[in-house]
């Protein structure tokens, strides 16, 4: 066999390999579509079994259609995400001139002696020119050895900036200080227990090439996912809420909450709203949590675009026991309720499309679901002594469609089965937390963290 022949053979083998891969890929996609169609069929079958006829009970019928359509609309929107995100920056990103603005990490911390070293170290490891990178830690009145560790780090990284507040001022103030002090164009806000994947760091910065972009949200992933079943459930939930729900929001450049675990902001966009954000209060009391959501809202109010980049990867620590998880969820729900009163006043003017097809339905569903869930899970079973089989099955079916899309997005993410557990947990527990959140709205404590 001469070399030409060998080359030809290896070429044909390579092309055969490509063909097999393409075929496998095609079968996989076709399988996903087929399973999706089957699930949708069963969903409709189930709805038709449980939903009363439109003429007889128009509200129940409409609610069923509405909720299902809403859930599916998230997936549909998420499917357009890549296209939308791709057109955000345009083709200039690959040009000779690399986009490298000055970037600052702002890390507020309080009593984080365990995690702070790791967080800071990770910041300096990112794939970005050191001279354009700023790391700024605000020690917000720590009473443990945090300051000592920060001093140590200062010797290791001379360009680390530490702001030391002897008295606790609150996370929001610490973040605001960071925004004020830093000279960077782009400010990355992170929780003290979060870290960003050094290799995908640039993905957090790149979208700012589009001057309308005010904030970029990274995809968060629990670092302690494998700890127990609760963290695995949260891993699935994080994947869904970032890769599907935030991606869906980002399709229309309107991410409603650039997650506190790791998001980047354009300083020039934040500064005009900084004091409004700091002064946020609700029913006469300052709001102590939900600063990420509040800041995003202020940016949206000014007409900024807020986007999600699925390729920017960040890690965070999630609650490992039920009580902490519930406290966190309660806080998030409260901040969601408070933010609703703020957002609803401007969002229709700024984002009529998103308001009509996402935000208003979301609000309707958030407040209707506890009622419907109570009726299906508590009231009807108690009055008719029947297990709400069809309701649970309906929720699991729509979750299955979510899980299918989840699996399609990332074949290697092994947590997708836990999405079902999370759905059950949401249905039986979390859908009622919003009621508790509304009742306890005036309790502005963080609870234990």
């Amino acid at each position, binding site marked *: 066999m001469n070399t030409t022949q060998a080359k030809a053979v290896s070429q044909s083998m390579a092309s055969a390999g490509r063909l097999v891969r393409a075929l496998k890929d095609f079968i996989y996609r076709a399988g996903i579509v087929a399973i999706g169609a089957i699930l949708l069929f069963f969903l409709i079958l189930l709805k038709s079994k449980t939903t009363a006829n439109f003429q007889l009970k128009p509200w129940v019928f409409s609610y069923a259609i509405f909720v*299902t359509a809403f859930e599916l609309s998230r997936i549909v929107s998420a499917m357009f995400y890549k296209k*939308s995100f791709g057109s955000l920056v345009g083709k200039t990103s690959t040009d000779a001139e690399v986009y490298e603005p000055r970037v600052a990490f702002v890390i507020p911390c309080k009593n984080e002696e365990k995690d702070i070293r790791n967080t800071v170290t990770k910041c300096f490891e990112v794939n970005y020119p050191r001279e354009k990178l700023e790391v700024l830690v605000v020690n917000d009145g720590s009473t443990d050895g945090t300051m000592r560790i920060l001093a140590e780090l200062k010797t290791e990284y001379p360009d680390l900036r530490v702001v030391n507040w002897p008295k606790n001022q609150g996370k929001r103030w610490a973040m605001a200080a960071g925004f004020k002090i830093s000279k960077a164009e782009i400010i990355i806000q992170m929780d003290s227990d979060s870290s960003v994947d050094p290799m995908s760091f640039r993905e957090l910065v790149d979208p700012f090439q589009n001057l309308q972009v005010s904030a970029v949200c990274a995809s968060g992933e629990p670092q302690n996912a494998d700890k127990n079943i609760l963290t695995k459930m949260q891993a699935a939930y994080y994947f869904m809420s970032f890769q599907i729900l935030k991606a869906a929001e980002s399709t229309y450049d309107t991410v409603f909450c650039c997650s506190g675990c790791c998001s980047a902001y354009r300083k020039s966009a934040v500064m005009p709203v900084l004091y409004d954000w700091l002064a946020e209060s609700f029913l006469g009391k300052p709001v102590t949590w939900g600063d990420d959501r509040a800041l995003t809202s202020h940016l949206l109010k000014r007409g900024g675009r807020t986007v999600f980049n699925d390729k920017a990867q960040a890690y965070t620590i999630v609650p490992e026991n039920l009580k902490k998880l519930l406290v966190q969820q309660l806080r998030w729900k409260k901040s969601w309720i408070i933010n609703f009163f703020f957002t609803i006043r401007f969002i229709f003017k700024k984002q009529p499309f998103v308001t009509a097809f996402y935000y208003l339905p979301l609000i309707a569903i958030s407040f209707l679901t506890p009622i419907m869930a109570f009726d299906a899970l508590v009231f009807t079973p108690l009055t008719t002594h029947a297990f709400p089989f069809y309701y649970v099955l309906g929720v699991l079916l729509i979750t299955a469609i979510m899980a299918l899309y989840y699996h399609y997005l990332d074949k290697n993410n092994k947590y997708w089965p836990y999405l079902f557990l999370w759905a059950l947990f949401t249905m039986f527990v979390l859908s009622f937390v919003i009621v508790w959140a509304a009742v306890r709205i005036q309790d502005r404590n963080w609870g234990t963290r």
Partner: protein
Amino acid sequence: MTKAMFLLVMVAIVFAMIGGISLMQNKYQYYLRLQYAVLQWDYLKTEIAYIDYNYGGVGNWFTQHKKSDPVPLDGKDAKLIPVLVYHGIITDPNWKPDGTNISLQDFQNQMFALKAAGWQTISMEDYLAFIQNKKQLPEKSFLLTFDDGRKDSFYNGDPVLRAVGYEATMFVITGASMDDGPSPFHLSREELQQMIKTGRWEMGSHTQNGHGSVPVNSAGKWNHFLTNEMWLAGKNKLETEPEYLKRITTDLEGAKLDLENKLGVKPVLAFAYPYGDYGQDPSNFPQDQSILDNIVSSIYPISFIQASNNDYVANPADGSAISKRIEVDSSIDSAHLVSMLDNSRYKNLDYTDDFSKDNGWLEGWGSRRIDNNEMLVGATASDDSASTFLSGSSLWKNYLMSVKAEILSSDSFSLVARYIGEDDYATCDFSGDAVELSQKVHGQDRPTIEARLWNEITPGVAVSAAIEVNGNTATCYLNGTQVLTGTIDPALDRGGIGFKMWDPAHKGTLVVRNLKVVGMPSAFPVK
């Protein structure tokens, strides 16, 4: 652009969901539509079959005259109207005639033949108006009915009705048809509505849940729901008459209300007795017939039973609340059915019959044969007597019937006049040693009116015999001589002619020839 695409996809999804849900929720509706679509094919097929029938084969479509070119009816009005009753129409090729149902092929042949012979269906409203003497209808009108509300009678029968332009009444067991779940056997409410919409079907009552049996004694015997007092096992007794009344009334009124409220049938005109049992069948409640008749006629203007062998097949305009129906199944071929209906029409007086063909001599008992210009009426192995009566003669009043009669291997025969039914008639009985004038009224044999010793009847010797009825007087003649005369019951105010013979040895045969019936001017008015 993305927003437009998103909206497009979401609109598609919402439409798909609403469509999918309503499709599955109304899957029965869609199933019905599918069935109806299939039915369209049957309509077409049957139309073609009908054209084919009319022209005697595809080749003759353009050259032959239609068979069913309307037979001129010379403007006569019907005096008698026959009613046909069918049950199921069967398409299963392995089905064997069962005495109740009919194969689709036979049904189609019968309808095509009736149409070709000029017979036309009428509506229940017209029928009722005719019976009540409020409306004249053309001759060759008949009423077509189906019992039990069976799916197969609609799905198989409707294309035939459509092809020939007939209408029919379906007697529905409302409890079986109006219940929520569709049944594989009974037509559903939706199907009944569909039927009404075609304009070819009317609905009548066949009880609500009374088409069945109830326990009738402590031994666990069951019998017909309507005509028996129910055994109350809990109380260890039969229900009382008021309880019976309540049960029956509730059911029959319930059926009427079902038709009114669930099908919009207004007014509900007709009722058909299940099994044709209006109280004549054995029952544990002998008074049932009149009680039941009272209940039924208080709820329904007209009711239907099945005609027995001894009944005329067509109904007169006598205001009766009960009509008799000819039960048709696969044992009756289409030519026979047509002649049966043709012969059931009113026969004018004077009437002569040379027995060159059958003009509608109905067999009560025994056998009857028309051959060689004579009619043979004979006992059979199972019947020791034989009787026959003339279809279409039921309305005759005053007449003299004369005939050449010969009795073979027996010594007695009777000429029958004023035959209303097997329970009501008058006879002149001729035997070897006597002539008697007798009558049966409301099923009771009345004592012989007149008898005269006589001995001119010899087997094998033809005699000329006659019976004359005129008002309340009946007269018997033998060989041109008036033998005796007497007064008959006023209940026998009209009725047709017939023959009877009796031979305990099961061998006797009566041969009759040259029948003549001459109308008489009424001597004095009949009641």
